[in-house]
């Protein structure tokens, strides 16, 4: 056994350097391909369970009746819109600082899903607001900052789409995404900092939740389902981006040939 392979075999799977090889699009591509069905199945199962809990198991709310059940879409979508923005900014930042192509491709892949969840959160929020508040939309801090988040996603996608040089597009988008990160804490803490019509936090790390346990469980299951969905879709999209960008490399030509067989 050579020294190099001996050293390699001494590294446990916990060592980060073992995983760094997946920063190469060529090695990440098949890994992503294997992971997509796994996360898609997890997402489908969790979403079905969460929807079942949400519509059949969770009790009717004392004040809001059955209209509250949109919480099982609204809150997970809003959580995902913020989490995906943070993930997008993270990968864009890694791509900017460490000059890795794949990180920037991942950020580009995450953006449309994040924008979709933001639209879903705003839309379901409006559908919830009409029966409970009497208004489709109010200009309070949380709704306004979530709307700003949608504009930030759209701005990111527009900027990357309008720059022809792909590496420049990656870096410019990264700067924009990182500047916009400040908005996510604003959304999260807006219900504490301002008098808003929007409900405050019912879930805290320190106190018991102020909502029924079945509702909480249903919401968390849906949130995990949405998270698995986001991962599956982002991996699928990043594979498409890799195919587009690296299409001149040999490994893709071989991959296409093997697919055609």
């Amino acid at each position, binding site marked *: 056994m050579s020294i190099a392979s001996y050293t390699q075999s001494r590294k446990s799977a916990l060592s980060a350097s073992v995983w760094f090889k997946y920063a190469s699009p060529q090695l990440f591509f098949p890994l992503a391909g294997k992971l997509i069905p796994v996360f898609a199945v997890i997402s489908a199962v969790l979403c079905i369970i969460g929807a079942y809990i949400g519509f059949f198991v969770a009790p009717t709310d004392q004040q809001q009746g059955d209209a509250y059940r949109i919480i099982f879409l609204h809150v997970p979508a809003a959580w995902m819109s913020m989490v995906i923005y943070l993930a997008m900014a993270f990968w864009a930042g890694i791509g900017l600082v460490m000059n890795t192509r794949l990180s920037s491709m991942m950020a580009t892949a995450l953006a449309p899903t994040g924008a979709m969840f933001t639209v879903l959160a705003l839309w379901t929020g409006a559908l919830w607001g009409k029966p409970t508040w009497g208004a489709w939309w109010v200009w309070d801090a949380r709704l306004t900052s979530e709307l700003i988040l949608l504009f930030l996603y759209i701005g990111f996608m527009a*900027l990357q789409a309008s720059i022809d040089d792909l590496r420049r597009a990656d870096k410019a988008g990264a700067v924009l995404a990182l500047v916009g990160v400040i908005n996510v804490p604003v959304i999260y803490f807006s219900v504490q900092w301002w008098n808003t019509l929007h409900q405050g936090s019912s879930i805290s790390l320190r106190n018991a939740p102020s909502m029924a346990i079945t509702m909480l469980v249903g919401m968390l299951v849906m949130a995990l389902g949405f998270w698995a969905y986001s991962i599956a879709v982002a991996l699928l999209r990043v594979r498409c981006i890799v195919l587009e960008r690296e299409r001149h490399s040999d490994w893709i030509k071989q991959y296409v040939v093997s697919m055609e067989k």
Partner: protein
Amino acid sequence: MLKALHCVIRRDLLLAFRRRADVLTTLFFFVIVATLFPLGVGPDPVLLRAMAPGILWVAALLASMLALGRLFALDYADGTLEQMLLSAEPLSVIVIGKVIAHWLVSGFPLILVAPLLGVQFDLPGRSIMVLVASLLIGTPILSLIGAIGAALTLGVRGGGVLVSLLVLPLYVPVLIFGAGAVGAEMSGLGGDAHLLLLGGLLACALALTPWVTAVALRIALE
């Protein structure tokens, strides 16, 4: 470093004064937009007074944003910007100089005209003073944040509309606190809190945005 700053400001002001038309069009855009709203919503003075802070601030915001095209594009086109990137002076200092000159030429005239427009909307005297103060603190923030957008979109097709899409979400806090200051003054609460928050935003922007703009310029010109 201060000498470089002074040089950059002097050069930009000189260039702007040679093309006074560009500068004046920004100012007249502000005046025209602010005049369009009363024509659109009707002459009811109570309504106009209530809407004035928002309208004047949005008009100032749009005028400031339209002027961003002049910040880096002309220097980028003739190669001066590349020389600025190569200079021994810190790029952040050069950026601050350009932003100061840009504000003096596009933001400051708005502040001078604002009292006139305030009268057009029948704003009380104290509110006009708060409006001027909020614009005085707020328009530099608009120029600083706008510089990031201008640097990111250098030479990119899509032009001014793309800059608007990028920069307007970042302008929103300035708009909220700026217009909010005048609104608070009119409702009797006093605009102090909002003006202080605006001051905080200005301090933050002054400290951070030149560096971000410098990074964006290097990305755009590599």
